[in-house]
């Protein structure tokens, strides 16, 4: 069981949350301009890293807010939780 640090509520048990998959996937600005393959890539293709990963989570049985979590998929170590719109820690881009 994970203890997830909600940016609003603090550390709460995983059972209060739902995972929304990989974070920082940008919708193509002009969907009509992309190929079917590019659209399919946006819709369906996700990285599945063994290691550092950034995910979206929602505190569904708490404050109800979506936010991002940086989690190591092997150790489950959560290095950061940050609000939507904020830059991931350690990301200079």
């Amino acid at each position, binding site marked *: 069981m994970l203890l997830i640090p909600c940016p609003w509520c603090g550390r*709460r048990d995983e059972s209060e949350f739902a995972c929304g998959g990989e974070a920082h996937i940008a919708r193509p600005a002009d969907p009509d301009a992309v190929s079917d393959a590019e659209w399919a890539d946006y819709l369906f293709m996700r990285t599945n890293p063994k290691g550092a990963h950034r995910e979206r989570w929602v505190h569904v*049985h*708490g*404050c109800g807010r979506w936010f991002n979590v940086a989690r190591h998929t092997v150790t489950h170590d959560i290095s950061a939780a940050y609000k939507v719109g904020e830059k991931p820690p350690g990301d200079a881009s």
Partner: protein
Amino acid sequence: MADAYLRQSPLAHLGLAARAAIPPEDIEGTEAGVVLCERPARHQIGLRGDARRPAFRAAVKGVLGFAPPAKATTAAGGTGLPRALWLGPDEWLVVTDDDDAATVADLSEALARQHAHVVDLSDARAVIGLAGAGARDVLMKGCTLDVHRRAFGPGRCTRTLLARAQVIVHQITQAPDYDLYVQRSFAEYLWAWLEDAGTEYGVRVTA
């Protein structure tokens, strides 16, 4: 709110008033470590808006006498009514007396020209009172929230899961004394769970 003649508590069929009327000396066992009650019906108002905007805070304060709490998982209004429970960074539950129909109307009017939301949710949730020396232990049996007095004290509130049912937990006093807001379709289940969980401490039902 439903017409008065149609309104019925989701716990009405449990005969809690009759159990509460039994004199304590007629109840087997000596100590009741867990005291359960159904709180009287209250006006419950869903409120949403941007707490960073002075106009929103001022409009709410003008009606309730206090601004909606900006600090996460805290309640404003103390032990009386009205109260405002923080549910999310732009979401609160305002609780007032059952016969106070003015507050929802006044909030709607005060916020009419703002990007805000006021809706009467009075009959959505039942409110169960949980108190007694064993109350904290009962919560710990079915809730992953840290309810240690250093982590969660009077004036704190949050949505969480209790026995897999979503509840709003609001600690009223240090005693401790909790309000548990539960969706009415879960109310009987949660009441039964609380009685079962409290059995080892001794359960008393009060009005």
